[in-house]
């Protein structure tokens, strides 16, 4: 019983981590069709910014986290205008340009020597909580709560605010949205900035579980891609379901088979879903396109 409870609890935590890391990438792609493959670079950048404000300038934790999110949003705006806009609507060029920007950021940090154990963030919530016979650090539970809250917030944003509706309109039918006065550059800028800010939120919540390690930037990109492909980009519920599936599966597999299996599962899930259900488990876009 303890074994099952342990796997379920850690699986839930892992699902929350996956959801947080994927939300930014998925929101940007879902709202404006921009595949922002610099997501992993922004994720680690905001971790370093938060670390710098917290450890070097001694800002309060919450303020340092907010600083990391703000810088990420600004980087998102710059990314759109300097990297994405010149190749806008050339999908392959967008992928290559953003991927190159992300790799450049990560490898710059490596070149700067930001690779030691000093680069760590303290937990947002200290201490541990015992549920049944399983003890888990309180910060992991905070990550679950934050993921749930952020998921709900985004669902509300997309349906109840003018900006959210404009973004969704642009994603669903660009020409109609343009004819109704929605400005493409504004929408795209907001979507990349919002996605980058969400990457930063994930960073300040997830990175305290480990280190600010440059390789986590590449991992974040893989995770974001896996959750988005499996869940589809149209509905937040799809992302939640994908995160739960992948989170539970990876934790169970790493306990039963060994830690190496988690990355295999992410990659296998991408291949399997693309082959069987290209729109994702709750997505219908591809099916509709094929029907039309």
């Amino acid at each position, binding site marked *: 019983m*303890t*074994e099952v409870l*342990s*796997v379920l609890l*850690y699986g839930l*935590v*892992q699902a929350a981590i996956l959801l947080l890391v994927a939300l930014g990438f998925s929101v940007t792609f879902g709202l404006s069709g921009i595949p922002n493959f610099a997501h992993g670079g922004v994720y680690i950048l905001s971790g370093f910014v938060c670390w710098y404000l917290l450890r070097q300038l001694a800002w309060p934790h919450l303020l340092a986290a907010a600083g990391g999110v703000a810088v990420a949003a600004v980087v998102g705006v710059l990314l759109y205008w300097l990297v994405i806009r010149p190749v806008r609507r050339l999908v392959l060029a967008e992928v290559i340009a953003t991927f190159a920007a992300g790799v450049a950021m990560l490898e710059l940090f*490596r070149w700067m020597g930001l*690779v*030691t*154990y*000093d680069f*760590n963030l*303290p*937990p947002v919530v200290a201490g*541990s909580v*015992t549920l049944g016979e*399983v*003890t*888990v*650090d309180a*910060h*992991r539970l905070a990550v679950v709560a934050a993921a749930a809250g952020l998921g709900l917030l985004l669902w509300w944003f997309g349906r109840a605010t003018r900006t959210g509706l404009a973004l969704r309109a642009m994603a669903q039918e660009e020409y109609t949205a343009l004819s109704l006065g929605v400005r493409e550059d504004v929408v795209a800028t907001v979507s990349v900035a919002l996605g980058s800010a969400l990457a930063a939120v994930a960073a300040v919540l997830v990175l305290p*579980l*480990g*280190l600010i*390690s440059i*390789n*986590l930037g590449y991992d974040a990109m893989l995770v974001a891609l896996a959750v988005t492909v499996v869940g589809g980009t149209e509905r937040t519920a799809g992302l939640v379901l994908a995160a739960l599936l992948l989170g539970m599966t990876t*934790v169970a597999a*790493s*306990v039963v088979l*060994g*830690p*190496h299996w988690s990355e295999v599962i992410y990659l296998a899930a991408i291949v399997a879903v693309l082959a069987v259900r290209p729109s994702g488990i709750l997505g219908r876009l591809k099916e509709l396109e094929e029907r039309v």
Partner: protein
Amino acid sequence: MRAVQLAVDEINARGGVRVGAVRRPLQVVSIDTREHEPGIPIHDALAALEKLLTERRPHAIVVGAFRSEVLLAAMDVVARYRVPYVVTIAMTPAFEARIASDPVKYRYLFRMGLQSEYFAGNLARVLGYIKSRHGVSRIQFVHQDVLWAKATVGFLEVWARQAGWTVVSSDAYPTGATDFSASVLRARTGRTQILVPVFDMPQSGVLLKQVKGAQLPVAVVGFISPAVPATAWQAFEGAVDGMVQFVAEPGPLAVRVLPKSVHFNRAYGQKYGEEARLRLSGHGPGPSYDAVYVVAAAIERAGTLDPDRVAEEIRKTDTEGVIGRIRFNEKHQVVYGGLPSETAISLAFQWRAPGRRVVVFPELAAEDEIRLPAGVGR
């Protein structure tokens, strides 16, 4: 590299190295192979080595390969360029096997750092002591998926089963991993009492934070490179408390039975500052510092820079260093044991609040006995 530079500066301050009738200063030239980083291919590291050999033409190489996989591949390159080469970090036992296979071809290569079988043997001795003293029987290995760590854990698994331990699991993580929750879960469900980590990557310290966060009733005994420096207590917010940490070779700790380790720490602190001394890592600084002296002494005895004669003199080395007595066996490996007057030694210390490192192994250097956390063993 700082340990190497310290030794070079000390030698130059005394007039340099006597080559025949002439005294010549030592000069350090270096190249970063980046092989300690995840995902760096071996051929990139070899290309860097060859660039150093062809462009800077060093008379000897110290420190050498970081990763065992690179060391094995580099042996043929070094043999081709005929340069005395004293490696101080890479730990694979395959190095000695390779030298035994062709002693003439590989006559330029030596190792001053600890070899993983010595490390595993020392770890086994300490684990055996803990088992008999505290009545524990359930052990779990967590290690980096690299050659030396796999060799160490492979040896320990066989030993543990023969010694009556129940091996809960043996978990391998790729270089760069930061999530060890699978092992935390396995430790809980498998009722692990002794957790043995074997890692040389900066990210591995996170394991200690995750074990502490889950409040696992386990004792941690092993090697986590970022948990060696005196600054680790603060960096990991006390999560290192109680860990029995092996130090591959003396260097980051001044040990009274090793006078040169006391000198090394004092000189290092004076040259680079106390903060830098406190951050010395647990694998490399001591033998790297000693390697410069070994090479310099060999050149002086040879009276020439001819690589064959220098290598022959390195082979005959018998001197006292930071790591203890330095002598090479027939496979060009410095002999490690428990008596610093006879061999080089490796150490283990236990982290105790409020951030003290108390030496607990070997017996001759121990300041106290190992204490297990409450609830573990008798």
